[in-house]
Each structure stands twice: as structure tokens, then as C-alpha cells.
């Protein structure tokens, strides 16, 4: 009986605490908690069952709710014996990868929590997968074992400094995503100011030098540099504008685009850069494949991919632009078009793979100055893919090469987002 009451009180604290923490994020769990919290009075009204049965039922429901939390929850009694472990925690303790290190941290905090201290520890695991966890352990007191509601609030209020505790609870929050978002945001701010300020600063300095420069040869050289810097800034601004227009998809015009023509157009846009580097572009595109999409966006995406491949390939190597149609059949006459650009270039380090589609993200800043890219190309590609209801994937090994694949699903799965000019009124 005592055990049930203790468990009940703590589960209630955990469930309500988590629901409050998540406000709106995990409404399902919140609703479930509310449902459980409301149920005992209902049971009372019906007059069914004794207090003991009611407690058991409540404990069972709370257990189910806490079991479905995304937090790992472990509860110990005053002697440090474990009395409860939820689903996520069980998985953590049974894991054989880095997750067991989080489980170990939980165990290590137990003594502190039982001694009446609230403790927390951040555990970063390298994985794979990479993860960042916050482990919090705190003691709880059960004021009255007969009244679960009061016990719950006592546990919540009886924070630090409690001389005698009735047990302790540990909770683990997975902060991996949050960490990632923070990093992306911080890097973005740093990178954009770098990309925009560097050329502006350079132009300013060059102009200052020109003012007092009597030698026409030097003036010419400085002016050439100024033009180069403004060109660079111009390209960045152009790409930014293109990116935002693609992002909003305001002037997208969806039409049928022939794939082979698309590839030719993208190559045209690159001009003589590949030829100058002695890079051969092989085309492996079946004739007659038609994509439904915005021609300008698709050309831009493809040109960016090929441009990237050219920049990061050694002189004299080969790039393959290939296309395959997957899953074309009865119910899906068009199939999903996989448009790939493969190079034998320097490749992308594994840790950067999932970040290269971020705006202004640079794997190697020194190199990017030389190649003269704006750092927005792959962000544009990703947005174009998203606008077409598709995706862009990358596989890469350093020193071997990279394959970027644009996945374009058939037209009926295109998102309703962009105004569909050509198919007006056709509800699909």
C-alpha cells in the first residue's frame, strides 16, 4: 500500500510537471494527464471500489502516461531501491550504445538526490548518433501517504534542503534537437555577417587607398580589386534574393519541363567554367522524361549542383549528371524522378553532411574564398526541392567524391503551397 502511494504521488508530479513543461508541445500527453487527473472523482461518484482499488487504478493510468513520455523517468525509494522506470528509461538501461552512458549518469546522481540535493548533469554523447542529454535528479517527500494529491504537491514543493526524503526521481531530457537549432542559429548569424561585411569592408579600404594614389597603374589594380569585391557582393545579394523568392514561391509557374532540356539549360548557365577546368560533364539522362515544376527554379537548382561539383573537383576529372525514374507504374504513371549529380571531388566530411544545406554554411572557409561561391547554392537547391514536394540527398566520402540527388515526386504529390498557374481549377 505504501509503495503504491509513493509511486502514485511521484508519477503524478512527473506527469503533471512534464505536461506543464511541454504546454502545447505534447498536447496528447497533457490531455492524457488531464484525463487521468479527472478520473478519480468520477469513480467516486459512481461509488465503485474502495480507496485501495482507486489508488491502484490511478497508479496504473499514471504509469501508462509516464511510460509514454519522451523523458526517461526513474524513481527510487528512500533506501535507494528502484521502484519505477519508464519505457524510455528502460530502453536506455538496456541499450548497448552510448545511451548506457546516460543511464550511468542517472545512477551516479542517485546518491546526491537521496541525500536531499537537487542535482543536474549534462551528458553529451558522440554516438553515433550524436546526442545531448540533461539528467536531473531530485528528492521528493510524501507528506501524507493516504492523500495522493497532497503527496504530489509536497513532492513538488519540497525541493532542496529536505533533511529527510521519501525517495528520489531522475528525469532525462533529450536536448539534441535544441542544441542543433542553437548551433545553426549562432553559426548563421556569424556567417552572414562575415559574408556581407567582408566585401564591404574591402571596398571601403580600397577606395580610401585610391583617393591618395598618384600612380595610375596602382589605381587600376585597386579598381580591379574593387570591381571583384562588388561582383562578389552582387552575387551574394542576387543569390539571397533568389533564395527568398524561391522560399516564398510567389512567382512559381508550374509547367511540364523536359528533363534533357533542363540539363542543357543548366549547363548553359554555367558557361565555360567546366571547360576551363578541363572537366567533362557526362549526361546520362533518358529522353522524354517530363517533370512538372517551375522551370526557372529547377534550372537554378541543377546549375547550382553542377557548379558545386565543378568547384570541388580536380581539374580534368569527370562529372556525371544522371536521371532515373523510380516507381513508375499503374497507379503512379509518372513515378519519382531522381536527378543526380556525381563528382569525384574532395567530398564532404561526415560531420558536415547534414549541415551543408544551411545558408552560408562552409566546410572550409579558406577554400570558399578561392572558389568564389556565395554559400547559398545548396540552400537554394534544398528550397527548390521542398517547393516541388521533394527532397535533396547527399552521399559523400572524403577523397572519393559526392553524389547529390534531387528527388522530385510526381505532380499530384506536389504541395499546395505554390500557386499552380497551369492547372487552375483542377482539384487534385
Amino acid at each position, binding site marked *: 500500500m505504501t509503495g503504491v502511494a509513493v509511486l502514485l504521488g511521484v508519477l503524478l508530479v512527473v506527469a503533471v510537471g512534464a505536461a506543464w513543461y511541454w504546454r502545447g508541445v505534447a498536447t496528447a500527453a497533457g490531455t492524457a494527464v488531464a484525463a487521468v487527473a479527472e478520473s478519480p472523482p468520477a469513480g467516486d461518484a459512481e461509488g465503485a471500489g474502495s480507496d485501495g482499488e482507486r489508488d491502484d487504478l490511478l497508479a496504473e493510468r499514471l504509469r501508462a502516461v509516464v511510460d509514454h513520455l519522451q523523458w526517461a523517468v526513474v524513481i527510487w525509494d528512500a533506501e535507494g531501491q528502484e521502484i519505477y522506470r519508464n519505457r524510455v528509461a528502460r530502453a536506455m538501461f538496456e541499450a548497448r*550504445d*552510448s545511451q548506457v552512458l546516460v543511464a550511468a549518469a542517472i545512477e551516479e546522481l542517485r546518491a546526491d538526490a537521496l541525500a536531499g540535493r537537487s542535482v543536474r548533469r549534462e551528458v553529451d554523447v558522440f554516438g553515433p548518433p550524436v546526442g545531448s542529454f540533461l539528467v536531473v535528479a531530485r528528492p521528493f517527500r510524501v507528506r501524507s501517504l493516504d492523500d495522493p494529491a497532497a503527496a504530489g504537491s509536497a513532492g513538488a514543493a519540497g525541493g532542496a534542503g529536505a533533511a529527510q526524503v521519501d525517495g528520489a526521481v531522475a528525469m532525462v531530457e533529450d536536448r539534441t534537437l535544441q542544441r542543433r537549432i542553437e548551433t545553426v542559429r549562432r553559426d548563421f548569424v556569424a556567417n552572414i555577417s562575415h559574408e556581407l561585411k567582408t566585401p564591404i569592408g574591402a571596398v571601403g579600404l580600397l577606395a580610401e587607398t585610391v583617393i591618395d594614389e598618384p600612380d595610375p597603374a596602382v589605381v587600376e589594380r585597386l579598381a580591379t580589386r574593387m570591381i571583384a569585391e562588388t561582383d562578389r557582393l552582387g552575387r551574394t545579394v542576387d543569390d539571397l534574393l533568389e533564395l527568398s523568392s524561391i522560399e516564398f514561391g510567389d512567382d512559381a509557374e508550374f509547367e511540364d519541363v523536359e528533363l534533357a532540356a533542363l540539363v542543357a539549360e543548366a549547363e548553359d548557365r554555367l558557361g565555360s567554367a567546366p571547360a576551363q577546368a578541363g572537366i567533362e560533364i557526362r549526361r546520362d539522362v533518358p529522353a522524354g522524361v517530363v517533370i512538372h515544376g517551375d522551370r526557372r527554379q529547377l534550372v537554378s537548382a541543377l546549375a547550382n549542383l553542377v557548379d558545386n561539383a565543378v568547384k570541388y573537383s580536380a581539374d580534368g576529372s569527370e562529372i556525371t549528371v544522371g536521371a532515373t525514374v523510380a516507381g513508375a507504374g499503374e497507379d503512379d504513371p509518372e513515378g519519382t524522378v531522381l536527378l543526380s549529380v556525381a563528382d569525384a571531388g574532395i567530398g564532404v566530411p561526415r560531420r558536415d553532411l547534414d549541415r551543408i544545406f544551411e545558408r552560408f554554411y562552409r566546410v572550409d572557409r579558406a577554400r570558399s574564398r578561392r572558389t568564389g561561391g556565395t554559400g547559398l547554392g545548396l540552400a537554394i537547391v534544398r528550397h527548390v526541392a521542398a517547393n516541388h514536394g521533394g527532397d535533396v540527398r547527399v552521399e559523400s566520402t*572524403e*577523397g572519393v567524391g559526392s553524389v547529390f540527388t534531387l528527388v522530385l515526386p510526381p505532380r499530384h504529390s506536389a504541395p499546395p503551397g505554390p500557386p499552380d498557374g497551369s492547372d487552375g481549377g483542377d482539384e487534385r
Partner: protein
Amino acid sequence: MDEMRIEFHEEMEALRSDVIRLGAMVCETVGRGTAALLDRDLHAAQLLIDGDDVIDDFCLGLEERCCQLLALQAPIAGDLRFILTTLRLLSELERSGDLMVNVCKASRRIYDIEFGPQLRGLIEHMGEEAAFLVRTAIDSYVDADTSLAAALDDIDDRLDELQTAYVQAIFTSHSVDNLNLQAAVQLAMIGRYYERIGDHAVNIGERVQYMVTGWLPDHPGATRPAAPITPSPGSDGDALGPGTDSGPDSGPAPGEAS
């Protein structure tokens, strides 16, 4: 008496899960060390070097517990082999951790050297393979899976091939990109460290086979001439072996050295 047995088995379970934890720590070290090397992150390298003390300490604690079990419970047959295997496992894992410390120390010596994408790719691959081998070795131990344990030797071939390609790439880099000799030697040693981690995993696999079946697999190949561990002589076989048959042949296999 029964109660003591229960306690004994609980302690063995606890030992098993702590070995999992140790394995996870070592895998983590392999990943972190490789990243520190590739990112030329001196701070991360130092953290890892300092963190190795934790692994060593943890190993010592586990070893102590193994010894206590041996002394107090006098286990026999499967239980005895489990504890003996665990003791061996500890040193293999601890050594693997040390090898990553070596990698980090080498990375400090070449932190100002720019090495090409091909070398980087191969290092990354070797790191992944090494971590995979350690994890698989632990899996085979926890599940007492002899076929997985036996497969470790073949899986290790991939790492060996990578290492060969890697050494070749260092030669190329040395002659083409003017990679200096000092850096080339450090890089070659790094390759060797990864390769050794794989060998330790293979050793664990052999020990796991012993744990389950009671006899030690033959030591093939010239890489391990004259088996470092002599198979148990016949008198001990009664306590260690699963039955009367303690092994295929006692005594080291002749003619394998060279």
C-alpha cells in the same frame, strides 16, 4: 546457500552491464578521438587523453570485482569461464582506449599539417570500422554469440584493407603533395593504432568463443605467430571445459610461426 547463488548471479549480471558500459565508453572514445584528429581540435584531444583515466579506473574496479567473485564464490565451468573472459575483455578494452589516447597524442604532433581529403576519408572510415568492431565484440560477449564472435576476424579484414590503402595513400601524399616525413610517420602510426583496436576486438571474439564453448579457437595467420596464450593444460581442463573434452588439441599449434 540459494540466496548466495542469487546474489552471485546478480553480481555477474551487474558485471555484464558494466562491461557494456565500458564498451560504450571505448566506442565513444574512438568516435571522439577520430573527430578530434580530423578537426585538429587540440582541446578535444586533451579532454580525451585526460578522460582515459576514468576508463582505466573503471577497469580496475571491474577487475577487482571479478577477483572477488573468483575468490569468494569459487565458480566453476560456465561461470568460471565467464569471469575469466571478462577479465581478459577488460584489458583488451582498456588497451583499445589507450590506443585512442595514442591517436590523440599523435594528432597533437601533426596539428599544423594539412592532410588531403583522401587521407581524411580513410581515417574517418577506419575510425568507424574500429568502433563497429568494438561494438560487435561487446554484442557477441553479451549475447554469448559464437558465430558473431567468429565473424569478427573476417570483419577485421575490412579494417586491415583500409589500413593498407591508407598507408599507400600516405606514400602518394608524401611524394605528390610533399607531405613531410615526420607527419607521414605520425599518420602511419595512427593507422596502426586503429588496426590494433580491430585486433583487440578480434581477441575479444576469440575469448567469447572460449567462454561459450570451452576451447580457444586456433590462431591462424602469421599476424599472431605462436599463440600468445598457451591453451590450458589437461589438468585444468576438467574445471574449465564443458565436459571431458576440453579442447581439440592441447599445446600450441606447431609450424605457424614465420
